[in-house]
């Protein structure tokens, strides 16, 4: 009987470890068991990322619709080329949509916000968003302000 209680407690211990792993996977790291939603790729060029990073989120009106998968330097034009994965369900982004880099709160993570325009044509897989707004740099604002004061 004593070995039985011991074996049961070992079983509970192993189960607790597995549950902890599941919690870490699902709740903490946000790993999803359901198959990945179909996505399509969009590109956008920015002159200044201001700390935007891969895995950052892409949102429309504050709702997350995708994430940033790659950031590269376009060596021809010397601008940053950002690759985004957008949920297939959001397929009505117009060609004149504007992608802008925003900050969550004052010091939070940088993310890309897309505001949809009114053009009848939609962006397809692999298209590039032409209209972009780079990150708002407080340093640049201050230096612009200071130089305009000097004039």
């Amino acid at each position, binding site marked *: 009987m004593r070995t039985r209680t011991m074996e049961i407690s*070992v079983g*509970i*211990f*192993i189960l607790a470890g597995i549950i*902890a*792993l599941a919690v*870490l996977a699902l709740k*903490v790291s*946000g790993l999803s068991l359901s198959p990945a939603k179909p996505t399509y790729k969009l590109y956008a060029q920015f002159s200044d990322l201001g700390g935007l990073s891969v895995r950052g989120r892409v949102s429309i009106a504050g709702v997350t619709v995708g994430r940033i998968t790659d950031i590269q330097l376009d060596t021809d034009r010397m601008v940053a080329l950002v690759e985004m994965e957008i949920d297939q369900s959001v397929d009505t982004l117009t060609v004149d949509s504007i992608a802008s880099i925003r900050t969550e709160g004052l010091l939070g993570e940088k993310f890309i916000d897309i505001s949809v325009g009114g053009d009848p044509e939609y962006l397809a897989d692999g298209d590039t968003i032409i209209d972009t707004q780079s990150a708002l740099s407080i340093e640049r604002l201050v230096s612009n302000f200071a130089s305009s004061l000097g004039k």
Partner: protein
Amino acid sequence: MLDSLQRLGKSGLETLSTLGRAGIFLVNGLFVVPSLRGFPLFVRQLFSVGVLSLPIIVVSALFIGMVLGLQGYNILVDYGSESAIGPMVALTLVRELGPVVTALLFAGRAGSALTAEIGLMKATEQISSMEMIGVDPMRRIVAPRLLAGFVAMPLLALIFNAVGIWGGMMVGVEWLGVYEGSFWNNMKASVDFGEDVLNGIIKSVVFGVVCTWIAVFQGYNLIPTSEGISNATTKTVVISSLAVLGLDFILTAVMFGDF
């Protein structure tokens, strides 16, 4: 001058030969042919190194998580970004504190017990009498303990992480009033399963192997006197702790360092 050189050489040779014996010991202990009859022995050891270590692991994890929440909040609130407390607590625990503190506690709680137990078996000549009646002590004593340690340590580290994050959430969300949604969502956004959780598990597996190996070898290798047992137990804790901290730096540099 020559004498001190000789002493240095001698201690170097001794260290090397101990390392070599420890290596052979590990291989011998692991590569015994496993049999179903040995399984109850393994379960018994899993009970004594795993289940009996649970209380200290859970309590420490709870307090460490709560302290992380409290300290993190006090630092982050100055910058108005107290919602970053979730990622801070989770990343600290999953990447570093979970595996390392669990390994240190494991060395103190289970490692010392393993050394003392095997040491006493050796001192009371149980091991040599086992050999006499034809039972392989490697198989009967060493292998189940090694395997149980290897299995128990990652499980304990996982439980530590989960409990610690829960402690951090209790302090951050329930007590200090960080929004629960931003706590979990920021955490999910910055913790990556492969990069953070899996690397943490790899760390805890390495620490489990090292701690158990050192503990069992120290026990098997000690001088069978009461002084020898006490020395070996102390050594187990000291060497395991140093090995864990040193290895942690190397593993962190390999896993998270950018090179």
